[in-house]
């Protein structure tokens, strides 16, 4: 009996030579949107139906009867410079030196899902049942044995083919040959998929699902982790500064701030599909911002512990440790923010993310200073100014998102102003109340109440940050897979 795909009109090219790699060629003029490739891919890889390594999206334009409807069948684009790989903290991705296929190792993966943000095409998909990410590997195991990938073998129209491309030439050509309506604008990854478009393309050809907006995952462990690391860093900065200017040692506060950092870091492992392997995330610090974040915060936690210990025991040189704590902490917050600056998440991909993360640290830091300094006017005004800056920055970001020509950024604003309007309003009510209430706060209980309001507002804001982001992606099916 012959092998699947053999006898088909689609044939495999000779293996790539030096400077070459395999790529997909998708011929939109041939695709009839039957989705055989999708089913064949899931059968090939044994994936559950929630996970589709190959997807068929619809694009539509024109005016009846000159309507145009076309399909995009996409697996992984096996980019020349894959961002999934450069972002991966554990080196789970590799670009095969012979075929150029971007491969993912389920054994190495810790399920941090950073690659799912880094890819502008939505290719890597997290499998919660297994705790790891997975993606199209162009059926590496088939290709290297001379068998067609499952999608290509199943396509009745011969719309999906494997080709060999010279990567240096492709760098010059890809802008034209890899672009298509319904695909995200090219990013730095250099997708290798060649797309043949119909000769006549309607100007308004666009994603059939362009109007569909859905909330993204809240990533609760990350909400907790980012806010609390920032709180801890802000508090340590306040403790350090107060030691510097007032020569007062807030040893109890330092222990508390350390505890907050510990909770934050513990929470972060809960975000992983495979927490037991969390330590591996340090591995790729030369390349991955996620590794750097882990590195900085690990160092921060250790230095902070030393600082808190030094303060507790009244050791000399604690101030130096305090400065180090603040520096590594701030570096950690910066690395944290930098993680979110990815083209695939346009609403995150701006300096507003830096501003938000540092403002959270500043707000809770100045509030800590208020509490520790006995509500000095200086500390109070710093808190108030931070809060006001936060409100201005928040409003500015919302305007910027709303007016953005990017559908994804505008979509984020629409989500915030419609389905998320209640939590958004609540977030600002909490912040404003905290700002107004602080001058009237009496004693530790009063400050604690203000802190609870401020912290609650920050948690809410971070929740909104995660759920409101609209990822770039290739066109999808019109109907969302789950009933709304």
């Amino acid at each position, binding site marked *: *009996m*012959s092998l699947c795909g053999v006898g088909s009109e689609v044939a495999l090219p000779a293996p790539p030579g030096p400077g070459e790699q395999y790529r997909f060629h998708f011929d939109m003029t041939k695709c009839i949107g*039957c989705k055989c490739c999708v*089913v064949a891919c899931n059968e090939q890889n044994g994936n559950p139906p929630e996970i589709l390594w190959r997807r068929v999206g619809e694009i539509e334009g024109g005016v009846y009867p000159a*309507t145009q409807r076309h399909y995009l069948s996409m697996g992984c684009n096996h980019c020349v410079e894959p961002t999934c790989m450069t972002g991966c903290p554990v080196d789970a991705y590799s670009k095969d030196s012979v075929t150029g296929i971007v491969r993912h190792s*389920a054994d190495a993966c810790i399920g941090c899902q950073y690659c799912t943000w880094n890819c502008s095409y939505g290719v890597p998909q997290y499998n919660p049942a297994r705790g790891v990410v997975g993606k199209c590997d162009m059926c590496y195991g088939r290709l290297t044995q001379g068998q067609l990938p499952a999608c290509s073998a199943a396509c009745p129209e011969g719309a999906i083919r494997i080709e060999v491309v010279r990567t240096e030439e492709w760098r010059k050509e890809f802008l034209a040959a890899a672009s298509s309506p319904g695909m995200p604008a090219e990013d730095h990854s250099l997708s290798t998929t060649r797309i043949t478009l119909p000769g006549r393309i309607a100007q308004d050809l666009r994603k059939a699902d362009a109007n569909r907006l859905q909330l993204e995952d809240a990533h609760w462990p990350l909400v907790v982790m980012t806010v609390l690391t920032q709180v801890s860093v802000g508090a340590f900065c306040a403790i350090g500064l107060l030691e510097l200017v007032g020569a007062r040692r807030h040893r109890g506060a330092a222990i508390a701030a350390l505890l907050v950092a510990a909770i934050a870091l513990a929470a972060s492992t809960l975000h992983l599909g*495979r927490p037991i392997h*969390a330590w591996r995330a340090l591995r790729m610090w030369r390349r991955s911002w996620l590794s750097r974040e882990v590195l900085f915060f690990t160092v921060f936690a250790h230095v902070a512990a030393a600082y808190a210990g030094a303060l507790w025991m009244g050791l000399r040189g604690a101030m130096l440790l305090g400065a180090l704590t603040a520096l590594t902490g701030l570096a950690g917050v910066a690395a944290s923010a930098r993680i979110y600056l990815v083209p695939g998440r346009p609403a995150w991909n701006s300096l507003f993310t830096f501003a938000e993360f540092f403002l959270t640290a500043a707000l809770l830091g100045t509030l800590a200073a208020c509490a520790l300094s006995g509500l000095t006017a200086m500390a109070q005004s710093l808190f108030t100014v931070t809060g006001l800056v936060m409100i201005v920055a928040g409003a500015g970001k919302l305007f910027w998102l709303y007016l953005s020509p990017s*559908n994804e950024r505008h979509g984020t604003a629409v989500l915030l102003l419609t389905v998320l309007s209640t939590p958004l309003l609540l977030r600002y009510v909490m912040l404003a109340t905290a700002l107004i209430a602080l001058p009237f706060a009496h004693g530790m209980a009063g400050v604690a109440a203000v802190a609870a309001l401020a912290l609650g507002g920050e948690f809410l804001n971070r929740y909104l940050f995660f759920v409101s982001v609209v990822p770039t992606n290739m066109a999808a099916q019109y109907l969302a897979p789950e009933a709304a």
Partner: protein
Amino acid sequence: MSFARWLARKSGLDTRAEEYAYGNDPVLGYTSLAKSADTWVSTTCGYCSVGCGMQIGVRDGKAVSVRGNPEHPVNRGKLCPKGLAEHYAISAEGRATHPMLRVDGTLERVGWDAAIETLVERMRAVQRKHGPESVGVISTGQLVTEEFYALGKLVQLGLGTRNYDGNTTLCMSTAVAGYKRSFGSDGPPGAYEDLEQADVILLIGANIAENHPILCMRVDANPRRTLIVADPRVTKTAMMADVYLPVKPRSDLALLNAMLRVILDEGLYDREYVARHTTGFAELRASLESVTPESAAKITGLTPEVIRKVALLYARAERPFIGWTMGVNHSTKGTETVNAINNLALVTGKIGQPGASPFSITGQCNAMGTREAGFSSSLPGYRKFESKDDREELARLWNVAVERIPAQRGLAYPDIIEAVVAGKIRALWIIGTNPIVSFPNLDLLKHALGQLEFLVVQDGFHPTPTTEHADLVLPAAIWGEKEGTYTNSERRVSKVNAAVTPPGEARSDFDIFLAVAERLGCREELFPGWQGPGDAFEEWKRASWGRLCDYSGMTYAALEQHGGIQWPYALGAKDAPAASRRLYADGVFQTDDGRARLLPTEWTPFPEQPNGEFPLVLNTGRTVEHWHTRTKTGAISILERMAPRAWLEMNPTDATVLGLRPHDRVEVISRRGRVSRIELRITEIVAPGQVFLPFHFFETNANQLTQSAYDPISREPNFKQCSVRVERSPLHAHEGAQTSLHHG
């Protein structure tokens, strides 16, 4: 999952690595080991009538994978997405596993003996009280031919009622009636090879890219073809067209007659063929007196120039092919439209030649089998009820008195339902079909089923919307669990095989029929010595011998060997079994005089025209991921993932007027009912004034809206047009996780 396993997984151990392991399978190549089979069983796909050859991979008695058979002439190794996931139908949730009898209002498990006894006793009781014809049987297009042949004899000669029809009347009876009227017999004349050989392909109301994707492969393998697609909706198939004709709903007959007129006026018809092989030319010509491209332009919405151009394209083609499906059939003018198509082929003499044929692309996997052997709309072997010779021939073959063979067909499906409403039919046996989803004007049908004294539903699945109304549910084996043959659209008889055993106590329909015959006391008379489908096939071969649908040269082994054989294939036939065969190449038809009939036809507007209260025309149809009423595909998670629910397509012009936005939930309301909370798709796929709704979904049942209007000849329902209005659904409190973007 044990706590230890849960903890291991949550802590990050890869406890499920084995499920995702790969390996080299000798047949599939490098693949997920979960799909690796120890045996492969060749069979034919059980969804549509394209008739793709496939193999079911079985491991440890379970169907774990499927593959297209690379050697099969129909599909050459390819399958559509439904076919690629067909093994999941076998192990799907909701399979019927035990006979269930309604006792005090609830269905309770009973044994097979009690079930069969109840069926026979209750049917006989109704017949004793109300006469033999007070019992009706509605079957399907999805049994094997052997079962259809057995069922026909059982119902007509054993049970003794003529009121027997199939759900094929909801899809193909129009093509049957059209062929019979024009050519004297049912039977699509062409072959799939024609799609590769034609120079002009005209598809009317046929969305093959959605419904028969594997045929697109044949169209696209033909570099010379000019593809013309007539459809009111810009379907996936319309996107393949070289010439797309955006006709107004059900104006196809006007288009065809105008084309005919142009061809006659231009003298582009084949005078010799018309003179030798047809009758009725003068009447046809006279009937076209008032038909012009200009008048047709007003009806179709096309320009007279386009109509002329298409007529000339067709007339000047050497090998023109006309294919149609439900856009033509689902209509009160369906049969006439088929006759108009046949008229075009006849006046140009383009019939039964390579590439040239008026070709009905069938729906269900074995709708053809029931047409050939089924004993419902005609006697087995395309024999006529009205013909004494035909009846006598069968009586001799079966060794029964000729009087027992009816001289007139019984009621057609819609008329059976109306007879139930009228109290003339009191007991119904429904086999392998789900009318609660598929029959028009749902409320009327529900009323009818409520009137019955006894309802038996025999199905592979339970509960289904229909089995829930049953007094007795008989669990049947489905595709992959039984043996026999299917005939596809091109008259190719292909072998169907059992790969696994049916679940629970489910039995093949064939076994159920023999058990009923046993109980009725007619088994030995009607099915002498029969044990399996092979015995039925042998008798059916003899019954078909000398007929148009001649099976007599076929054997199961030859069918397996050649990937099916196209009939007619007579005993002692000289041509190679695998050769492509066509009908009527010699110009001799199945009429008494051997001549085809040219039949005058007349366009009229569809019955329910839009008005101020119901301003939109509702069109219904399918999506590639689902099969009919979703009893199978609704249980297959990958297909549900890709097509999770129904949607309503509406043109932006209408949406603007109604103030509706994409993804809004809307109500669709007709004079007869309403479909609620359906997701709106605002799209240029449909024309202003029209909306489209896929009919697969029980949850948003299109047949709440459709009407009881039937083709007077074929009795096929007018599913495709009715008038509706659309309103925004009231908001639900839980809404909120999704919104839509309105930007630029």
